[in-house]
């Protein structure tokens, strides 16, 4: 309680006040923090970067994890090996994998550019940095999302698929009209958690790109961290946190309504 509701209220309260570095509220300023925030270029960048990240990350992650789960949904020793490989990223902690990424994507010493035969400036080119952040985000969520999809696919009755194949359904039709509706609840669940994760992304930014180059990967929670801890700007930090709350809540609410209409539980 003390560490979830109280800070939630304190955060909202702080966002309407001027706050000292020690966290004491000075005086009520109404919406002034917000009007300053929305006018600042830095915040507009964070907002658009966070939304852009969500827009790239969520479809890429859903597509890759679902494809992996479909590809690994076979029988045999090789299939088991594939499955183990697919969820192994889960065994590498966040900071370890981000440090690995930082090194293998280094433009001159890193192995990635050598293997691809390219000289992409992953950390100096705004577009490449965003792409790197998306790749890193996918890598962090891959193992767990793969496991979820894999479990859902295993629960699809095999005889239904056989019947469909005997009836002459193409693999695409089998997926579209038979498998997809059956794993629907899992897909929605993964979608919702992915969007939530994407809106809140901060630690990978902190370790990998530090918001750069030129704020091109500065996200909302990362800016909140900067304002709150680096600039001692508690009030502005709290306003950003409140904006993050509102954004995540509203997106989740919309999705939950859609879910009620679209997904048919058996």
């Amino acid at each position, binding site marked *: 309680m003390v560490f979830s509701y109280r800070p939630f209220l304190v955060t909202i309260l702080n966002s309407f006040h001027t706050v000292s570095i020690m966290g004491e509220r000075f005086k009520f300023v109404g919406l002034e923090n917000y009007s300053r925030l929305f006018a600042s270029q830095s915040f507009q960048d964070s907002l658009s970067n966070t939304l852009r990240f969500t827009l790239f990350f969520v479809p890429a992650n859903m597509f890759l994890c679902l494809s992996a789960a479909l*590809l690994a949904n076979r029988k045999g020793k090789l299939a088991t090996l594939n499955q183990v490989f697919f969820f192994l990223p889960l065994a590498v*902690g966040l900071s370890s994998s981000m440090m690995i990424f930082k090194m293998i994507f280094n433009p001159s010493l890193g192995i990635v550019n050598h293997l691809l035969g390219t000289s992409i400036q992953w950390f100096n080119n705004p577009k490449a940095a965003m792409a790197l952040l998306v790749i890193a985000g996918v890598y962090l969520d891959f193992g767990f999302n793969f496991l979820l999809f894999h479990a859902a696919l295993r629960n699809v009755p095999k005889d239904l698929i056989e019947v469909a194949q005997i009836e002459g359904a193409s693999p695409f039709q089998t997926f579209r009209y038979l498998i997809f509706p059956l794993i629907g609840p899992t897909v929605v669940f993964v979608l919702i958690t992915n969007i939530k994760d994407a809106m809140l992304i901060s630690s990978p930014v902190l370790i990998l790109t530090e918001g750069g180059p030129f704020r091109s990967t500065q996200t909302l929670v990362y800016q909140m961290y900067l304002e709150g801890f680096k600039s001692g700007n508690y009030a502005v930090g709290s306003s950003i946190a409140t904006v993050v709350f509102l954004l995540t809540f509203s997106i989740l609410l919309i999705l939950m309504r859609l879910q009620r209409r679209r997904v048919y539980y058996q």
Partner: protein
Amino acid sequence: MRFIKASIATLFSLVVIFPIIYTISASFFTYADFTSIPAKLLPSSFYLENYVRAFAETSLARFLANSFVTATLGMLLRMGISIGAAYAFTFFTFKGRDVLFFVVIATMLLPSDALILANYSTIRTLGLTDTYLGIISTKLLSPTHIFMLRQYFKTMSREYREAALIEGCSDARFITTLLLPISKAVVITLGIHSFSNIFNDYLWPLLVTNKEGMRTVQVGLTMLGFSENLDYGPQFAAIALLMIPIVIAFIIMHSPIQNSVSSRFAGR
């Protein structure tokens, strides 16, 4: 068709584990191996100096110890609180129980990363920065754990408890001798989940620890100072050291891990 599917899957899975394999391989690289052209995938020799330097030149051992202490302590406290709360929510009837349960579960909707500002000032006011208690304090209440334990406890008949109480058994004894052995599987799964959750946390321990000696390994790993000097060998060694035991555990446990996820979802 089957063959194509299998080959694409294998290729794809190799890409996915490439960073892991490369890290292990690169932890044996000499400095020359990193700069050689064309780039190397395998080390030129079994070079252990990186591991020695990772320990000798940093406080890696201390970071590891900090992480183990906080994760173990946090896991035990969190499980204790969760079991107690789930027990009360299942077997006791008191005024406002369902409201309170809803209030606890609704904390799931508050994203913890957005709460760190206010939590940090609480911890600082309490004087708990740079302490183990400060690192674990925000992790102690886990609504998901309480929810899942309660779901499990509910499958058990209330008459068992009533019979036990009539025979003169206390609640504490009922939990330790009957309830926990029955729900061993769930408790162990959640315990492992708690441990890895606290062990892998990054943002919160970064904020509450300023002294080098109090950093957890996840935070310490990013501040070893090797990668900034493009001295990649010891950095890869430190990561590999942390990663290899967990990777091996995952490979051995692969089928229980897969089953635990599928049963969690089948039961919805």
